[in-house]
């Protein structure tokens, strides 16, 4: 765990709501794993007070060396403020934090699922999986409210992924929710993946976990919670989970420390 100022390399709007933020932070870039996150202090002031958690979207080892990229969505005070930051300004990073995605040794079907801004951690995951030389197929299911939500699709295609698109308004791809279309499609495939990697809103994650249970495959779900510290010190970021082996009662896990990536079976859904 490292605390560092990181210079802003770029801060580019992809749409009115989505921005790519490039940061120079070699110490964190060199050690962070897919699915892990950083806590960002946007500026040296106490309004906003708390750091904001963001996943690593991509690493750019050479451009310049030690740079990393965050994809963020403007939702409130902190992210709105972030849009005003310019190259040359810096933010303060705490990371790498949390437990990222785990990779089984299996070399087969790789399935990623993203809902909206849930796409954020997946490019780095996809690159890492592609580098693992899995046999494939490589598939990303990507759902959004509307076509503008669907960023980075070309990057996945370049990595050899087939990209299946779903939008709630049907403006592009299938119409509806990812979770409605994914299961019927999956059942028709020649083989099932061993794991589904998924990041998206809570109801989607629950549906994915339930589907995975029905199909007897495992799921690795990147979860969100309001966070105070990001390191396990404050017990703010609770997620109700099944008792760890041996223990009797269900307990609250810390999303920041025991996650953010959980096995769907660990979670007690509300």
């Amino acid at each position, binding site marked *: 765990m*490292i605390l560092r100022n990181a210079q802003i390399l770029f801060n580019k709007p992809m749409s009115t709501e989505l921005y790519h933020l490039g940061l120079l932070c070699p110490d964190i870039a060199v050690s962070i794993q897919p699915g892990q996150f950083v806590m960002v202090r946007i500026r040296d002031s106490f309004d906003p*007070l*708390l750091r904001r958690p963001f996943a690593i979207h991509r690493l750019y080892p050479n451009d310049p060396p030690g740079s990393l990229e965050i994809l963020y969505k403007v939702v409130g005070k902190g992210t709105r403020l972030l849009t005003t930051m310019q190259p040359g300004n810096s933010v303060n990073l705490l990371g790498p934090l949390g437990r990222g995605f785990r990779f089984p040794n299996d070399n087969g079907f790789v399935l990623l699922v993203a809902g909206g801004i849930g796409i954020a951690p997946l490019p780095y995951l996809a690159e890492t999986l592609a580098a693992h030389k899995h046999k494939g197929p490589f598939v990303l299911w990507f759902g959004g409210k509307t076509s503008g939500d669907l960023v980075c699709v070309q990057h996945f295609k370049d990595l050899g992924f087939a990209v299946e698109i779903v939008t709630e308004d049907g403006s592009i791809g299938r119409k509806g929710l990812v979770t409605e279309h994914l299961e019927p499609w999956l059942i028709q495939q020649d083989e099932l993946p061993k794991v589904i990697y998924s990041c998206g809103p809570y109801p989607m994650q629950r549906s994915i976990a339930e589907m995975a249970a029905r199909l007897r495959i495992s799921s690795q779900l990147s979860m969100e919670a309001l966070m105070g510290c990001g390191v396990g*010190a*404050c017990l703010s970021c609770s997620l109700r989970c099944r008792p760890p082996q041996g223990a009797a009662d269900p307990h609250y896990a810390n999303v920041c*420390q025991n996650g953010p990536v959980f096995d769907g079976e660990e979670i007690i859904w509300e």
Partner: protein
Amino acid sequence: MTINSPVILAVELGPLRLKNPVMVASGTFGYGQEYAALVPLENLGGVVVKGISLEPRSGNPPPRIWETCGGMLNSIGLQNVGLQTFLREKLPHLRPLQVPVIVNLFGNTVEEYGELAAGLDGHEGIDALEINISCPNVKAGGMAFGSDPKMVFQVVSAVRSRTNLPVITKLTPNVTDITLPAKAAEDAGTDILSLINTVAGMAVDPQTRRPRLGNVVGGLSGPAIKPIALRMVWQVIQASNLPVIGLGGIVSVEDALEFLIIGAKAIQVGTANFVNPQVTLDIISGLEDYLRQQGLRDINQIIGTLEVAR
């Protein structure tokens, strides 16, 4: 006084000696391990661990925190591993370190406070107990213990009679007159007072029309509450002869100095750890710089030196 002259930061709080006056506050630094990669614990004046109860507690339903202007609300609900797990799994990591370890504790009844004190007494590696009589976010009783001087007296007496460790009583700010529970704790034999715990607060989401916290009401902490904390610490210092630990909203060396100048012998840093995990180290070196800049050599030369024109 040159830039490198050695300065003395050590302070004494009755039976408790600290190498410097900067501690971390209960509930904001876990059991001491979570920030260890960034903060060498041995550099701190003391570590106050997350509040411990007799039995483990799973805490309140999420959401458990909400950010406010200059502060945050929390309703963790005193989640903790319980006395036995603490002694078995957490204390062994702290024991070898050259840093005073203070165990924050709370019970549901006066008797539980006493039992906890007895259960913690005599374990190597514990340097003091801090009684949390003030947590505002537990529904039954939590508010009452700290705001009723009679209950404060009972709780502190129960702890005092079951331990030989230095006893710190941590006061709640949610009272009309902070000097009354302070006096009650003094009468019951506490060695030290610490204040303030969080201020009861609330927030609502206008879109869903629901409370922001699962528990509806929570405790406000962070720089927003510093002026309130400072005022209460000053009131207690004028009314009591005991050493006082000041906390509430400290985020910088200037904040720490305000508490020391009005007479606090030490301070604790809570919420600011989340904002800047190394803030305690910055405060410690900032105190040294301040002393040099003022041409002083001992932190005790500034404690209690507020000049009130009158």
